[in-house]
């Protein structure tokens, strides 16, 4: 515990500004991150709808498109350059301004001190700063929509030379702003991850050994290490491109002695770990939720923790699997294939352990649990489809087709997003002291689950048919024409999917004010955050809890109840043997 926060719970800051805006309280910062990411979810989702409209009806004007200025949409039509900007910003926003801030920024901040029994982060001021670097970054990325020639248009992967010289894309300053925004959001990530690592290493409550930490904390811990190691590489490569664009260096220009593929190596050295930054935390959250609602200890806790470490470690040696067809030496391709196949093993272990946790449990189908089970179910599909890409020869055909788009959305939407839905429903009562509506939560879940699968599953088939990704009009190709009915079907499903997210938004907002009030531990869960009041005051705990056991003692014979919180000395009458876990 840091000195400044050792004070009693109610003695926190009282002015509006220090309490809600420039707060140093990890919980407020977490919630701030959450709202930023909700806001960008709306924008990213809206852009996705525009993509799907264009692909279904390549020559029809966007409904309501005439509301846009004609410099953006010509008579309501999405033009090819604007299309490229739309999917570039969709990908960028969803990754850097929705998923990462939500999983690590919002939940990382909110949960870490609470779940390890600390009063706050190790460096509360740095924590505040990490949020206040993200906010300007968000302004920069948003402002790029309004500059002459519009926002970046080279895909979220931003390969030079396309991204290097305005003459290739027709984008000017918007592209530079993209680089600046990502540099800033990377800075925010680095500050956050430093804080998380320090906090987890130093500030665990008495008795909270590493192997008594909930898997949520394991996942966030390992993710923070990943972030700390990978993000500076991204920063370096963004900096190099920024110099290329502004002062005329030639890191990526062959004409000046640079190398085009250098970007890809450095970019994927960050971005491959980054895809784990987008899934590992969700894996941790879902593990906790599944254990709680099947009232069973997590199956193979140690294997789960080691798999997280294994995925992270291997994650640094597989980046080349994004580059099998890039012109990289094919022999290197083979070695990247080997490491990639290896990394599938810990993923399989995790999946089987989730199934093992359900096995002989007593499963409560709360909204959080349904979303968590959907996470597992969809991660199975997304993980398995990855094996096609891992196989170098098969990747020749499916690389840069809709098969990839299907795979990445099974992992990111089916994985991260369902993980987020599960976690929001699960921790909402802790955050706001009220419940979200279970009924509307379930309606949202069922509709989302169906619409989501109807949207993304057929994309595998589009990819197998050979449809390239990032193309403005698939009907230009004769061999893609038979796929057009399927494109229309996918778009219809996508519009439905987009629409039903309003249910979630409304449920969230209404429950903030009208939800049923709850006490500390509405789910009868074991980990320490449930020992704090809902919502916890400044400083989290009335007294710092002492930890007696692991977080998954559900249905233990040691206790008459079907749960046994980490901070309860012993549930058995005096004289009975104490817990060993």
């Amino acid at each position, binding site marked *: 515990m840091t000195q400044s926060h050792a004070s009693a719970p109610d003695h926190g800051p009282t002015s509006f500004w220090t309490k809600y805006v420039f707060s140093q309280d990890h919980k407020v910062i977490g919630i701030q991150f959450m709202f930023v990411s909700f806001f960008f979810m709306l924008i990213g989702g809206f852009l996705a709808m525009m993509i799907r409209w264009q692909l279904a009806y390549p020559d029809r004007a966007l409904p309501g498109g005439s509301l846009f200025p004609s410099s953006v949409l010509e008579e309501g039509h999405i033009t*090819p*350059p604007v*299309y*490229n900007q739309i999917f570039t910003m969709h990908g960028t926003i969803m990754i850097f301004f929705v998923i990462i801030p939500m999983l690590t920024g919002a939940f990382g901040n909110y949960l870490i001190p609470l779940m390890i029994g600390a009063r706050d982060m190790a460096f509360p001021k740095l924590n505040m700063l990490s949020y206040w670097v993200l906010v300007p970054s968000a302004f920069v990325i948003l402002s790029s929509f309004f500059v002459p020639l519009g926002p970046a248009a080279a895909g979220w992967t931003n*390969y030079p*030379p*396309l991204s290097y010289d305005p003459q*290739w894309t027709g984008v000017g300053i918007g592209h530079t702003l993209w680089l600046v925004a990502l540099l800033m959001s990377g800075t925010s990530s680095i500050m956050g991850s430093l804080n998380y690592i320090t906090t987890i290493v130093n500030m665990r409550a008495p008795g909270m050994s590493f192997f008594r930490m909930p898997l949520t904390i394991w996942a966030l811990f390992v993710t923070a290490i990943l972030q700390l190691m990978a993000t500076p590489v991204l920063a370096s490569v963004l900096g190099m491109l920024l110099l290329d664009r502004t002062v005329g260096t030639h890191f990526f220009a062959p*004409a000046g002695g640079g190398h*085009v*593929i250098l970007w890809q190596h450095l970019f994927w050295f960050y971005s491959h770990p980054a895809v784990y930054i987008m899934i590992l935390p969700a894996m941790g959250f879902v593990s906790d939720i599944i254990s709680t609602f*099947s*009232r069973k*200890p*997590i*199956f*193979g*806790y140690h*294997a789960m923790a080691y798999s997280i470490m294994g995925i992270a470690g291997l994650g640094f040696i597989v980046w080349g699997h994004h580059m099998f*067809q*890039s*012109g990289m030496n*094919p022999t290197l391709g*083979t070695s990247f294939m080997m490491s990639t196949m*290896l990394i*599938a*093993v810990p993923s*399989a*272990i995790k999946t089987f*352990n989730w199934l*093992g946790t359900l*096995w*002989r*449990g*007593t499963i409560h189908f709360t909204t959080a649990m349904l979303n968590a*089970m959907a996470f597992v179910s969809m991660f*199975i599909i997304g993980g398995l489809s990855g*094996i096609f890409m*891992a*196989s170098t*020869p*098969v990747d020749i*055909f499916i690389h*840069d087709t809709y098969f990839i788009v299907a795979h990445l959305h099974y992992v990111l939407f089916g994985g991260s997003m369902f993980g987020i839905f599960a976690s929001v429903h699960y921790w909402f009562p802790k955050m706001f002291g009220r419940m979200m509506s279970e009924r509307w939560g379930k309606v949202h879940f069922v509709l989302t689950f169906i619409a989501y699968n109807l949207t993304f599953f057929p994309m595998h088939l*589009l990819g197998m*048919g050979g449809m*390239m990704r*990032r*193309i*403005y009009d698939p009907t*230009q*190709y004769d*061999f893609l024409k*038979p*796929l057009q009915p399927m494109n229309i079907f996918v778009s219809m499903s996508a519009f439905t999917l987009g629409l039903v997210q309003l249910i979630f938004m409304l449920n969230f907002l209404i429950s903030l004010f009208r939800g049923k009030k709850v006490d500390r531990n509405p789910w009868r869960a074991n980990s320490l955050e449930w020992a704090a009041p809902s919502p916890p005051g400044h400083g989290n705990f009335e007294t710092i809890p002492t930890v007696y056991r692991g977080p*998954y003692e*559900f249905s*233990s*014979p040691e206790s008459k109840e*079907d749960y046994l919180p980490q901070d309860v000395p012993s549930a058995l009458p005096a004289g009975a043997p104490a817990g060993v876990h």
Partner: protein
Amino acid sequence: MFVWLPEVASTYGPRIDHLFYIILALTGGSMILTEACLFWFAWKYRHREGRRAHYTHGNKTIEAVWTVIPAGILVMLTFMSKSVWDLVKHTNPPSDVNLLITASQFNWEVRYPGSDGKLDTPDDVVLNNEMHVPLGRPTHIMLRSKDVIHSFFLPNMRVKQDVVPGLTIPIWFEPTKAGNYEIGCAELCGFGHYTMHGILTVHPAEEYKAWLEQAEKEAGPQAAPAADEGPA
């Protein structure tokens, strides 16, 4: 509306497809098994009053089994993939069909050596977005780009290779069926990316010879490309 992999028309194509279907069978099988388990457990172990969950922290034997089996399958897939990959990328069957394809926004320039058999000489035959190759003989292609990264995609031949400015990348394929096929670009290369469309014609051997002679006559003597026109 039902779609599957497009018609295959190259020698190594069926081997890639074969691998695809093996992986499809394996992953499809695993998917059905695991998803079925998930749904079955969800049903069988749903909460009912009075039942308590089974208290266990895991089982080392089961965990070892379900680690080793997927690992074994993945090792097997790695070896199977490696042999096909080596066939595509590391073999180089001899052939006298050599051409140079230069990508630029948004065009595939296809260059044939004329009767002197050498590229980049005045008697080259140059076509745009149009490519002709003989049936049953390996075609060797040098890929270059003048501006940004493109990706040379022949869906029916199972060929895809990024075309990178600053590099000359050799690829090959051997067509097994005569006919017309489409050429696409698979790497985002600017706003005209979706229009980078060409046609590949696979001719029976005799017809190809006739076509080449005709094309040379039509092209007539041409200037060699100026030095600065080539890729940097």
